[in-house]
């Protein structure tokens, strides 16, 4: 093992895994704190059946994504940023784009040791900026935010679609063939979803769209890579 590998696998990773596990569990417990406080101190006590009904309704929508999203996004995030992203949330609209921007600006490959470290730094900074701006907004309050002219609010609503298009372009330019494959999978699945062709699946089948888009693209890209290597092998 090289010296780099020794530091990364021997010291950095064990530290991240130990603290990542601890901080995510602590975050989960602290997240329950306010609801428990309302129950115990302020006497806001919804019946257990209502708490479970709300939870089950949400779990039936999100349940599949608890597993699908960490698995799908892991190749971009790496170990440290996975802990961070799934504790801090707002993933597709913030953590992923910033992790990708950090790696692109530094010119490192996602999935390499360097890529893992830079995606962690990117997500950390997005957490700081997120919380700083959010704190300011919450302190100003709804009354002030409502004063913003409707045209400004409407325009800011287009940040998200523009961001999604831009992040796709960032990866599509260096990998045009894979980008084409991804678009075909995603469009076909989205179309099928809208036409009700996925209705045979249990629950709301949106999860099937993301699973097929991500893993279908990975599968085809891997096959294309293998074919190219064979060609090279045959030529040499």
């Amino acid at each position, binding site marked *: 093992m090289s010296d*780099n590998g020794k530091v990364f696998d021997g010291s950095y990773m064990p530290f991240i*895994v130990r*603290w990542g596990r601890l901080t995510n569990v602590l975050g*989960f417990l*602290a*997240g329950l*704190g*306010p609801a428990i406080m309302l129950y115990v101190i*302020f006497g*806001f006590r*919804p019946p257990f059946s*209502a708490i479970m009904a*709300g939870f089950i*309704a*949400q*779990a039936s929508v*999100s349940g599949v994504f*608890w597993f699908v999203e960490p698995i*799908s996004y892991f190749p971009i995030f790496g170990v440290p940023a996975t802990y*961070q992203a*799934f*504790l801090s*949330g707002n993933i597709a*609209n*913030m953590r*992923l784009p*910033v992790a990708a921007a950090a790696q692109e600006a*530094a*010119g490192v490959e996602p*999935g390499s040791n360097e890529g893992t*470290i*830079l995606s962690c*730094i*990117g997500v*950390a900074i*997005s*957490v700081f*900026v997120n919380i700083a*701006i*959010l704190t300011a*907004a*919450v302190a100003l309050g709804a009354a002030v935010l409502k004063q913003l002219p409707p045209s400004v609010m*409407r*325009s800011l609503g287009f*940040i998200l*679609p523009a961001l999604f*298009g*831009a*992040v796709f*372009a960032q*990866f599509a330019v*260096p990998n045009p063939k894979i980008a084409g494959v*991804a*678009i075909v999978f*995603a*469009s076909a699945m*989205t179309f099928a979803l*809208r036409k009700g062709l996925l209705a045979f699946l249990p629950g709301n089948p949106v999860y099937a769209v993301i699973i097929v888009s*991500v893993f279908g693209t990975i599968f085809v*890209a891997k096959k294309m890579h293998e074919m190219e290597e064979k060609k090279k092998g045959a030529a040499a």
Partner: protein
Amino acid sequence: MEYLKIANGLPMWIATGIAVSIVLFQSILFMRKSMSCGRQIGISDETLKVAVKASIISSFGPALAIVVGIVPLLVTMGGPTVWMRESMIGSVTYELMAAGFGTAAMGVTLGQAGMDGTTFACALWAMTLGSTGWVLFTAFFTPQLDKFRTLIAGGRKALIPIISASAMLGAFAYLDADRILKFDAGTVACLAGFAVMAALVVYGRKSKARWVGEWALTIAMVVGMVAGALV
């Protein structure tokens, strides 16, 4: 709406503040460790600086977009709850949906007449419990995800960057397909963001100009936003 006094009261700020602090603590700890490990494995200070700058700049647009989305939640759930929930796992759309499920379980529509302390608490339970899966799954299984990726790559390191790019393209193709098939102003914003970013990436790779890496995402986002708003 008497409950809003408690929902916006000091005890709620303290209780939610503990959760927000843990999120901050984790990222401070990880960032410091990553900076020092990065230097040890030979990432130059210059590169680290560029990446930090790019991350700060790229974070502003998405952070502002979140602020726009929280207004309806602020009115019904109060400042502290929104502060905590938007700093933790979930997203603007998730929180609105979960809060709605929570109040519906009490027979009340979120923000409508009949909202009281108990309904508010039930919404908070739904928002919190509905997101436990993400935090706990990653708390315990992140190292296994690393092994799973190696398994997909068939143990070949050369395939890992290809798998990463494919996962990213698959995920964002899914997010984009949804926007594009709607054929509305959002579609225009999405396509404009794509076009501007593609041009900037090509230019950046040719010219090696550092500002491109730092600003590309923000420029593409702003142009896309304006394009969408003008439609």
